[in-house]
């Protein structure tokens, strides 16, 4: 079996060096990276064939990933971690940060998801972006994103992971703002970038703390030494990692950027903001299991954040009329489930990853389906303008329906297996958490049914000049593949395969008898979902849907439409104090200094005269500031050293 550190339940990372098919590991990243480079540097020369090349390269990566997956299946449990040293990033004294890659069961699954779903979305984009004048650039950014995302999940140390982390952030920024003619898109891109930096702050502090505590950022070293660190240190590390995860995965309280990010082209929403990048936070926590297992308090915080996000996202999903924003709320909620699984520790890690994979299938499927609907509806995103689209777009409808059944957890579909496992584990851990997760499942049933009814059923509400039509096959084939995966994804759980496969990374949970039989949990969960679906049928399906959103609605709906006031909270707590600080500093910088000398006209119209005097601050006020600063320095020295 594999090595454990003392007293821990989690295996130590202890890779062997790469050989055979695994020596191609670097190529998985290099292929899409080369694609991005060729398309960006080649410029207009590559306009004609660039998108095809950019699609073939990820398919190549997928091929390698598949070969390696088969290779790793043929190995013993203890031999399933492989690392490859690319080059030394820093080396100074004994500090050595290498560009090392790590291939283990966890990254194996991510590799398949990223390259597989990524390739499908590239294919889809060939159709979706066919008429966009900047198509080449779009594909270049997509390839750049894939390379960064693969770096994130393949790196053997936190610094390399951070490189990928920032890389996906950059690519996401470029792609959200891709339609730069829309000011809203540019604003959304900026917002995503800034909020993500808050999370990145947590991650970068964590990395520095790793470095100071363990003298390294490598998973191998840290997982072996984690047992020796103090409880406080690991708790702080856990919380900092969680902050990083919240930013990237749009979890409470850093969720506000995800809905705005829907300004990007729909394939981007499917790939980055549903299937892969936003799940990086879950990856981070599962990957850092050797820290979280030693930090139970941090795990509790993960669970709390997860539960809030599940309900918060679901609430938003219920009220939005914009099909992509409703799906985005749902994404936040579903990632909450994965976080919940990850927060539950050894018992939940594998299920978190399982749900992550199935969600990657069905959510990508539904986003692409939504894109297909928008494609047919002249890029209208308001579901109140849809209705009865199923007749015009049968393939989109059928594939979307598979995703729908998967996400609500219809028995037998992939989401059923994965969500059920998380709810079951949560109930076994803490019944309040379990009940919240159950409630979330019911609300999921409600908002997804509402979305389904508004879009594909009820009577048609389109404008006369809109002619919905089925999308070309280059778009529908990926939909069909993803729909198949949404249906069959549950097969990974057969015989607990995924749990066993991931055990070299996540450890093995001790077997305990659940307080409530698993079958009972399943039945209850299905019943709760059925209530949600029925509610949606009575509230939406049986009534007339107005083309304009009614304004006299309950506060619950209003709050949901306003994203549960996430932006208001951010503005009140962060943005406005920041503005005040800036104004105050500007005033101090230019006026207070002067004002203390000449009386108090500072207060009157200080801001108005800022503009006038901005260029020509007075030397005397600067000199006064130097003097005052000198006094501060002296006082600080004297006070500190008086003792």
């Amino acid at each position, binding site marked *: 079996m594999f090595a454990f550190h003392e007293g821990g339940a989690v295996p130590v990372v202890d890779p062997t060096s790469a050989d055979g098919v695994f020596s191609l590991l670097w190529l998985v990243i290099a292929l899409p990276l080369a694609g991005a480079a060729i398309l960006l540097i080649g410029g207009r020369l590559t306009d004609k064939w660039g998108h095809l090349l950019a699609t073939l390269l990820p398919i190549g990566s997928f091929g390698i990933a598949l070969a390696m997956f088969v290779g790793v299946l043929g190995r013993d449990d203890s031999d399933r971690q492989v690392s490859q040293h690319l080059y030394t*990033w820093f080396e100074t004294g004994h500090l050595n940060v290498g560009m090392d890659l790590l291939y283990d069961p966890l990254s194996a699954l991510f590799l398949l998801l990223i390259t597989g779903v990524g390739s499908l979305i590239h294919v889809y984009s060939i159709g979706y972006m066919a008429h966009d004048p900047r198509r080449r650039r779009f594909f270049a950014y997509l390839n750049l994103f894939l390379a960064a995302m693969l770096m994130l999940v393949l790196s053997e140390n936190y610094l390399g992971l*951070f490189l990928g982390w920032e890389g996906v952030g950059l690519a996401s920024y470029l792609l959200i703002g891709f339609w*730069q003619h829309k000011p809203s898109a540019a604003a959304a891109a*900026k917002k995503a970038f800034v909020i993500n930096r808050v999370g990145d702050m947590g991650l970068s502090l964590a990395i520095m703390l790793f*470095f100071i505590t363990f*003298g390294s950022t490598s998973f191998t070293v840290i997982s072996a030494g984690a047992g020796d660190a103090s409880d406080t240190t690991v708790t702080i590390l856990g919380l900092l990692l969680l902050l990083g995860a919240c930013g990237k995965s749009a979890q409470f309280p850093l969720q506000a950027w995800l809905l705005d990010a829907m300004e990007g082209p729909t394939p981007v929403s499917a790939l980055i903001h549903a299937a892969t990048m936003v799940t990086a936070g879950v990856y981070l926590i599962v990957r850092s299991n050797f820290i979280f297992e030693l930090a139970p308090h941090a795990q509790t915080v993960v669970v709390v954040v997860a539960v809030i996000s599940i309900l918060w996202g679901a609430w938003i999903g219920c009220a939005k009329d914009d099909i992509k924003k409703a799906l985005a709320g749902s994404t936040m909620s579903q990632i909450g489930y994965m976080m919940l699984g990850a927060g539950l520790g050894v018992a939940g890690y594998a299920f978190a990853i399982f749900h992550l994979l199935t969600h990657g299938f069905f959510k990508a499927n539904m986003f692409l389906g939504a894109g297909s609907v928008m494609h047919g509806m002249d890029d209208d995103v308001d579901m109140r303008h849809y209705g009865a689209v199923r007749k015009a777009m049968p393939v989109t409808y059928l594939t979307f329906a598979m995703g729908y059944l998967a996400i609500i957890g219809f028995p037998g579909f992939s989401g059923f297996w994965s969500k059920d496992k998380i709810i079951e584990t949560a109930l076994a851990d803490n019944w309040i958490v379990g009940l919240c997760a159950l409630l979330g499942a019911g609300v999921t049933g409600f908002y997804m049914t509402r979305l389904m009814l508004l879009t594909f059923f009820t009577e048609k509400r389109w404008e006369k000049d809109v002619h919905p039509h089925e999308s070309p096959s280059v778009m529908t084939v990926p939909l069909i593949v993803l729909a198949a995966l949404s249906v069959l994804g549950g097969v990974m759980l057969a015989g607990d395969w995924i749990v066993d496969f991931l055990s070299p990374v996540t450890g093995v949970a001790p077997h305990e008898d659940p307080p409530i039989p698993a079958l009972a949990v399943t039945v209850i969960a299905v019943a709760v979902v059925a209530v949600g679906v029925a509610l949606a049928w009575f509230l939406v399906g049986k009534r007339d849907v107005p083309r304009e959103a009614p304004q006299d609605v309950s506060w619950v709906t209003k709050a949901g439409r306003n994203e549960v006031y996430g932006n208001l909270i951010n503005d009140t707590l962060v943005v406005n104090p920041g503005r005040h600080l800036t104004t105050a*500093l500007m005033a101090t*910088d230019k006026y207070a200094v002067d004002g203390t000398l000449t009386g108090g006209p500072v207060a009157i119209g200080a801001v108005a005269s800022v503009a006038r005097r901005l260029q020509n601050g007075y030397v005397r006020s600067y000199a006064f500031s*130097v003097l005052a600063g000198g006094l501060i320095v002296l006082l600080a020295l004297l006070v500190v050293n008086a003792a």
Partner: protein
Amino acid sequence: MDFTKPTIEYADLWPMLVVYGVACLGVLVEAFLPRERRFGVQSLLAGAGLVAALVGTILVGRDLDVLGDGAARGTIDVEGTIAIDGPALFLWGIILVFAIGGVLLFAERRLEGGVSSFAGQAAALPGTEAERQASTRGLEHTEVYPLLMFAVGGMMLFPAANDLLTMFVALEVLSLPLYLLCGLARRRRLLSQEAAMKYFMLGAFSSGFFIYGIALVYGFAGSMQFADINEAVRNDLGNDALLLIGLGMMSVGLLFKVGAAPFHQWTPDVYQGAPTAVTAFMAAGTKIAAFGALLRLFYVAFGSDRWTWQPMLWVIAILTMVVGAVLAVVQTDMKRMLAYSSVAHTGFLLTGVLGVQQATELSDGEITSLQAVLFYLTTYGFAMIGAFAVVTLVRDSGGEATTFARWQGLGRRSPLVAGLFAFFLLSMAGIPLTAGFVGKWAVFTVALSAGAWPVVIAAILCSIVAVFFYVRVIVLMFFVDGDPAPGGELAVVTRPSVLTSATIVVGVAATLVLGVVPGPVLDLAGHAGQFLR
């Protein structure tokens, strides 16, 4: 009283002496050569002198003596007044590299249509007949090259000074030529002269603090030499007030030079008013030299009792970062924005100064604060000089267009130049795979391992704010449509000569290489070892 002739170790000092020698030669060239031949001779002379000094620095650095336990290398020369040690030579090296960049930018004549960006005749009042004549006759000031060389000489002496008086002399030698250079802009001369005047007056004011502090510290220690002061501090002679006030006043002088808050206010005005080539050179060179001196003063002279001054620096560092980052957000002028961002960088560098100094206090593999700061200075210098070099290219009919409104949509019109500028900004913001990331990472880590976590948290928060204003510029260049305001025009990129292009290309290459393989330069900084005591 006998007079003993001081020993001067020419073999160690010659790189610096070359710089001073070329500066003096430049003055002679001004006096004896006909006007039309001066430009070529002066610029070649300055360039050759700097390259020779750089080669000399490398040669001297290669055979420095390793001392005692191997933590430091070098010798103390000229009767104990100048320390030629690893850190000093490292600083010399980067100062000379950036000075070469400065000369290249100074010599750029294509952007202004055949003349340099310096005033034709500085003595002519703006808007007068004399000024018009000077510009129609195509006059230019070639004195800028000797001035630059004197400033470089001062910058080299400053971090190498090993006693208080030498340090003061170096401070003045580096500052006076810069005051003059700042006032020599060809365009917007009033702004430029005002900047020079302000810089001079405030510089003189802060020098007053510095020299007063020197007097007090001398009163405390009874010696000008750092080693003796260190001894006095260690033995705690009991006259603390003298030491503390002296230390505080000297800090004011140095913190003014590095542009730390609340002594930063000259920075935006001077960076904006000075000719951009001067700003580029000054932003990189002055900060490097002043940080070198600050490190030596605090680590060598006051190093044995760092808890006297560390709390003060904590406060200054946090204040500097907050002021720099927050005020940069509200700027609407590219040069002012870069100036405030340079204030924020001062704060980040001060964070590094707070780190652990002695390699013996560290576990294996950790880097010392000196190493981190030296590396950060290198990355900062390349990004700053490159960014300001790009600013010289972006012009409208009135010369350089530095207001944000003019930069709208520049990424559409000149994707290459805008892309390079964006790359420099990303490095300043500390995005991975750029030099700035490794630099920030290094200084934050050393500060954290010295327990300065409140400063590090403030630093990370400020770097988030900083990302915001850098990204704002990138958005402006790439994502905003170029609709000029009524009556306004949009800036375009003017094609420069090979001189400016070379500076920018080297800046980009260094920023990329230091981000991807920072090892060799980090090693070199580590190899430089500690300051000599």
